């Protein structure tokens, strides 16, 4: 069904749209962000100007963008999705050629005063493209090999570029995010089974390749795998972060050590405590109650997104919503699994909570588009 079939009169227009926003989602996003401000204030040792204030300013700007995007009709996004995809791929190529190297990987593109992380933009743009593709594709063709190959290429092109940066984490996120859209679009489960089998075979091969001439991963990546498998083996070296994160998390107990009382974060035992490991500070200071609350808020956000997708009869909007919500889900579950020692350490922020402009902006933009899909759903 396409927007032309809508009973267009029933789609809210002008400022009335504001009444049809998915308000619970707005409140949930704000609540999670507030937890973020609180934690950033805490881990800075009470210096509000250090992390909390800049984060709040970005949040305010991000919210403005979110509302603005929510007012943009959803069909606009479908029309520009291919253009956005192409721009993102070009930006990824540009970053490859002239990007700024940070943390051992090329991720930033500096354009005057603006620093762009094209890989983050890509996360939304390519989900949009995939949604548009499946909206265009007749449902019965979805599982035909040729029509499966096209979205696979759409996914693999930016993935390959991101992998060259090299940024394994984002590459996996892209594949998983694209996979979710394909899955929901109805691609036959056999394909997924085959991919999982191939991935398992690939992992085995990669691990086997270690130490040989054709080694497929960087040594630091192998090292991370080692540390993941046994963090205690090198408690002062590479395993230090994970050990300390787990200590902080576990020592929180039921109700935590209290606001600003977490010894692990306050005394600098935690690495990256304001970015990737902020969940451990939360868990340390507010315990199971605090960490569980955050997890619950995330689940509610996810739930409202899925509900919005299910009630949206527009295929593009529905798939886009699922894609963005899926990316959000991947974000927080990968981050939490990492700090709890269930996945190898890789730099991934906790969505809406970790300090960092790009990630927050992209997420709020994503939620803006999601709101647009909600507002402009066929009625």
């Amino acid at each position, binding site marked *: *069904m396409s927007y032309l079939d809508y009973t267009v009169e029933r789609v809210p227009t002008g400022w009335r749209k504001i009444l049809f926003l998915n308000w619970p989602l707005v409140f949930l996003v704000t609540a999670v962000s507030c937890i973020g401000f609180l934690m950033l204030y805490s881990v800075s040792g009470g210096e509000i100007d250090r992390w909390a204030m800049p984060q709040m300013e970005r949040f305010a700007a991000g919210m403005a963008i979110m509302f603005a995007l929510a007012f943009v009709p959803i069909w606009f996004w479908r029309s520009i999705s291919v253009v956005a995809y192409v721009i993102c791929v070009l930006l990824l190529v540009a970053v490859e050629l002239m990007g700024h190297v940070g943390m051992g990987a090329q991720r930033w593109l500096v354009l005057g005063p603006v620093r762009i992380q094209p890989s983050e933009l890509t996360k939304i743009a390519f989900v949009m493209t995939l949604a548009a593709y499946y909206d265009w594709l007749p449902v019965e063709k979805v599982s035909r090999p040729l029509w499966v190959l096209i979205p696979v290429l759409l996914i693999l092109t930016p993935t390959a570029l991101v992998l060259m940066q090299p940024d394994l984490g984002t590459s996996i996120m892209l594949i998983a995010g694209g996979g979710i859209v394909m899955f929901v679009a109805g691609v036959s489960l056999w394909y997924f089974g085959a991919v999982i089998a191939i991935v398992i075979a690939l992992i085995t091969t990669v691990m086997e390749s270690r130490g040989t001439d054709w080694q497929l991963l960087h040594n630091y990546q192998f090292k991370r795998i080692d540390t993941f498998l046994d963090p205690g083996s090198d408690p002062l070296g590479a395993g230090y972060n994970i050990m300390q994160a787990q200590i902080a998390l576990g*020592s929180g107990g039921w109700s935590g050590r209290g606001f600003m009382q977490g010894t692990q974060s306050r005394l600098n035992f935690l690495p990256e405590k304001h970015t990737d490991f902020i969940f451990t500070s939360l*868990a340390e200071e507010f315990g*199971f109650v605090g960490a*569980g609350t955050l997890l619950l808020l995330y689940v509610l956000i996810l739930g409202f997104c899925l509900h919005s997708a299910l009630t949206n009869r527009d295929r593009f909007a529905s*798939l886009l919503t*699922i894609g963005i919500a899926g990316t959000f889900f991947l974000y927080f579950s990968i981050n939490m699994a990492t700090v709890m020692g269930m996945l190898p350490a890789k730099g991934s922020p906790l969505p809406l909570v970790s300090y960092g402009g790009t990630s927050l902006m992209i997420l709020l933009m994503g939620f803006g588009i999601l709101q647009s899909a909600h507002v402009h759903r066929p009625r």
Partner: protein
Amino acid sequence: MRKSQKEIAESSRLISRRVLMLGVIQAAVISTLGLKLRSMQLEHADQYRLLSDGNSIKIRLLPPARGLVLDRNGTIIAGNEQNYRVTLTREDAGEISTVVARLRRIIPMSDRQAAELLAEIRRRSAVTPVMVADRLTWQEFSSIALNAPALPGVTPESGLSRSYPRAGDFAHVLGYVGPVSDYDLSKIENPDPVLRLPEFQLGKIGLEAKLEEELRGKAGNRRVEVNSAGREMRELSRQEGQQGATIQTTLDARLQNFAAQRLGTESAAAVVIDVTNGDIVAISSSPNFDPNKFVRGISSVDYKDLMKHDHRPLADKTVQGAYPPGSTFKMVTLLAGLEAGVINPGSRFFCPGYTQVAGRRFHCWSRGGHGTVDAIRSLEQSCDVYYYELAQKVGIDRIAAMARRLGIGVRHDLPMSAITEGIAPDRAWKMARYQQEWQVGDSINASIGQGYVLASPLQLAVMTARVATGREVIPRLVRAIDGVVQPVPDFADLGLNPLNLRTARGGMDAVMNGSHGTARRARIVAPEWQMAGKTGTSQVRNITAAERARGVISNDQLPWNRRDHALFVCFAPYDMPRYVVSVVVEHGGGGSAVAAPIARDIMLFALADGLPPLSAYPDSERAKVEEMWSKMNLMPEPTSKTARAKA
């Protein structure tokens, strides 16, 4: 483009089905996360809490204050003083060369010292405090504290450091403390962790080393919170250490001071024992050294000077030094003879000036001889021939047994370092030591305290105390530990015939007060302090026949280290002995001329508890004594006895 209703419915159904499947997968992932969170935070929280505390809470030891050492009147002879020092931590200092340059405006430091300091700071970890300067004056210290904002990373600290207020007076008996070396640690099983503190000091020698366990005390601790760099953030709790035990010695600081001054620059030793309880009231070895220098880390120049000095200032001659006792040994030989019954006090020998034994001549110190000599006269005039004859009758084994009974050839257990056993030789000893038969000549030499016989000044004092009391006086150095007075044992009777003892004492009295007494010039004329004693002059070289033919060269003409040792032992008051004094002056010459006056002066000071009235000295001596006193820089007399006790 248009889509049919059927298409839309199919798409919706498909999406719904897949979204539900996706939702299930996501719910499974989130449940796993939740369960893991629950397992870590609720089930294993205690375990992680422990790890977390272990991370951030460190226990730092607080060094205990070392126990004080007091003299018998409560005067502190080893105490602790505030030591102001400054440390620098690179992490906080920023530009260390600037900070050091600023510090140099307050603390004098040569260019070389500053360069060494900078190198040291760069070498050490950024969070380790490095000692910048030690033993600052209060002014320097407070000036650094005042300028703290301009000196980032600089921490003024104060700690306790050992000090010996009487400087050299007690150097040998107390010893000194010093930094703990790896060698020290290797000698101790399960060393107390406090010993590993960088500034900690332990007893290296003397009483400080022997009573280390009592003096050290118990370390306190502080629980501090540290950050990941190991830097202290705050103190959580503090438990002060327990100061080491206060050791009250039997020593008398003023007498010790007098003895040290009286020995002066001689290479000498003096021991004073209270015969009523065995208390060592003074035990002084000369020359001495300033133990404070060792505490602060002695300079190599100073140390070389001490090592090269031919009077061996570092050696404790009172207990380490073993000397041929010479004629001071004659009481032992005499008592051995009397107790064995081979002679009685009235037995006489004729002294022609020598004895001929086995084709060899043994000379009396008096070339002309002493004529007929009985026991009393043998001591009074120190006739050697009497003892040559006696030795042949009584035999060496009985002399050696008597020596050991009187405390020579046995080790007296005191908290001092390297206490010698001396030698009371007998047949078995010579066989074991040299695989040779004992010769008559050996007995003859031993009878007058020459040959193999060796005794320390302490042993000579003990011997004299036992002769003076007839009891087995055991010397002691510790009077009380933490105020608990150590019991004085009831000294056992030696089981010697009182008549024989009286003969020996009478002979010693005659040495001082008899008309021909060898030490008559050193007598005490105050009747209540009448003193009995015995001189000794022991050879440290063999006089060859050729030398004897030329006439024995007088001591004054010999190089210092070949001159005779001068010895003297005495006790007083004669009828009710209180103190014994033994004095050995290495290469001093004659016992009567050199050692006896020293012993007498110390004895009088002990008896009078201060400088005695001049009337105690014979007329002829008074001017000399007064002049000597005027040159001394004695420890001031305390204002009152009670004040001293309180201190």
